């Protein structure tokens, strides 16, 4: 589903060059739930961003669903992300000025859908994460766990084949973290969604199919 070949990422300033990822190669199968672990600054998020086409590698090739992504322009990348990928962030990144339902339908705005379809799909996604009764709330009126569930609903509303989650339980207590993890596991199990999750939590990581460890930008496990 996702194939990374010799991915290298170098950050350059005037004086310093930092190698964030050093020749990382990774194959992730369709329907797989993979977790990435490693100490802070080891390049986990950079790798996830590159996988999600949010950042470009300095070297190497990314294939998603057998499609080369290297030569795509801004518009093609945007469309590709919209169709294939869903994102979950540690700090939720919800738009506080919009109601929960509007937040969730956001990815559908960039597709050819009617307002009615968007409403229905968004409500359906929210029901799936157990928030059917919070459609008209604003994000600031919700708890951390509820916000992350809204973010998951937003990630799955467009029915993407891949979900990339960057420390989705990082800001939550263990009970709420477990709830979120349960939703992700269900998505993987029931819908066959491929999930790549960056985490610091060994317990969470061990619930997934495979664990990849990074250290100083290189894959060590």
């Amino acid at each position, binding site marked *: 589903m996702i194939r990374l070949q010799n991915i290298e990422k170098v950050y350059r300033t005037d004086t310093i060059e930092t190698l964030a990822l050093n020749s990382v190669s990774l194959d992730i199968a369709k329907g797989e739930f993979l977790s990435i672990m490693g100490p802070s600054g080891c390049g986990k998020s950079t790798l996830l961003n590159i996988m*999600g086409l949010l950042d470009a590698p300095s070297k190497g090739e990314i294939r998603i669903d057998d499609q080369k992504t290297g030569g795509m322009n*801004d518009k093609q990348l*945007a*469309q590709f992300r919209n169709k294939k990928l869903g*994102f979950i962030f540690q700090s939720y*990144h919800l*738009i506080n000025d919009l109601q929960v339902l509007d937040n969730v339908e*956001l990815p559908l705005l960039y597709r050819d859908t009617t307002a009615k379809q968007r409403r229905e799909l968004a409500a359906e996604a929210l029901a799936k994460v157990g928030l059917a009764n919070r459609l008209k709330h604003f994000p600031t009126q919700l708890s951390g766990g509820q916000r992350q569930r809204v973010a998951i609903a937003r990630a799955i509303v467009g029915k993407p084949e891949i979900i990339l989650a960057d420390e989705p339980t990082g800001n939550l207590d263990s009970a709420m973290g477990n709830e979120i993890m349960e939703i992700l596991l269900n998505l993987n199990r029931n819908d066959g969604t491929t999930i790549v999750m960056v985490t610091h939590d060994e317990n969470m990581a061990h619930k997934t199919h495979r664990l990849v460890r990074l250290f100083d930008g290189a894959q060590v496990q």
Partner: protein
Amino acid sequence: MLKNYFKIAIAVLKRRKFFTFISLFGISFTLTILMVLTAFINKVVGDNYPDKKRDRSLYINRLQESGEENMMSSTLSYYFLSHYTGMMKTPVKVAISSMFKGTNTYVNNKKIAVNFKYTNAEYWDVLDYDFTEGKPFNKQQVTNADRVAIISEDMKRQYFGDVATVVGKYIEADNVDYRVIGVVKNVPVTNYMLYSDIYLPYTVSKEDYKSKGYLGAYMAILLGNSPGDIPKMQAEYESIIARVPVERKEFKHVYSHANTFFRSYVDTGNEKQSGVFIVVTAISIFVFIFTLLPTLNLVNINITRIMERSSEIGVRKAFGASSKTLVYQFLVENLILTILGGVIGTVLSVFALYAINNANLIDNLELSINFTVLFIGLLVCLVFGLLSGVYPAWRMSKLNVVTALKA
């Protein structure tokens, strides 16, 4: 999609009320100034009372004589105008009138400032003054130098008070009594070529209208049969002027033109300086500076506002918005803001024009909002919205997603 943009635009406006106030104030205040300016220009240039036949009229109001070191420029003499336009074959009629001149008169020991103007009889055929009572003077009365007068409604009210009719009554101007034979609707003083309080036959003038000098206090309007006569009349007048001998040795050239209304309205009286150019440049610079400042201010505020929303930009990009879509979103949001400013500006303009009209700053000038003005106003708003939105939107749309999400 638009509904979503609208929701977020309103939410953003509500979020930072002070910024919103500054933005809206900038837009609406600028718009008000521009609306008043356009209303003024529209009234001055666009209002065709009493010269309703403007499309087939030409105006002669300057003559310039120049030599190597000397130059004289002025309105023309009655003799020059009647003599040389009399030679022309194309005009069906020629109105000749002096520029208005001020004097004082007294009613019940109260001083009234009065402007009067001398005209020929054809003046009343060429121009379409609305008579509320009486009628214009005719050729016979002019030839006889009858002391008859046509007055404006404003003059009637000032001099005679609230009376139904004044035809047959006498009015004193410049120590002479004239019999009122007609009352016409007011002409604003901004139409300086045709404005006056009292109109008199040129033959009653105390000045020598028979003097053969070129320069004097008069101007002429040539009336053609149809708009197609305009170029013919212009060419005819130019060829006559080309043959006019110079008056004095120190001069080498005589210049005078039969111009359309706007050209003659802004004529500088100097052959080397185009009045149209000066007026258009002056207005353009004024409008440019006046719109530039709030636009820069808006650009600045917009950048700050959009920067605050970098997380939203990151999320939208991650979930499939292209840079182009984001530019579109921010432009729509900015247009909503400017249109809101536009509505406020329009309301303020109505109040401003009402206040200006009531303050009676300029004689007989009634400014009004009309569709042209409104259209210009809305166009200005649109330009505002685009100008102040494009740059910040473009800048933000180029933001790297990862950077945007981290901010």
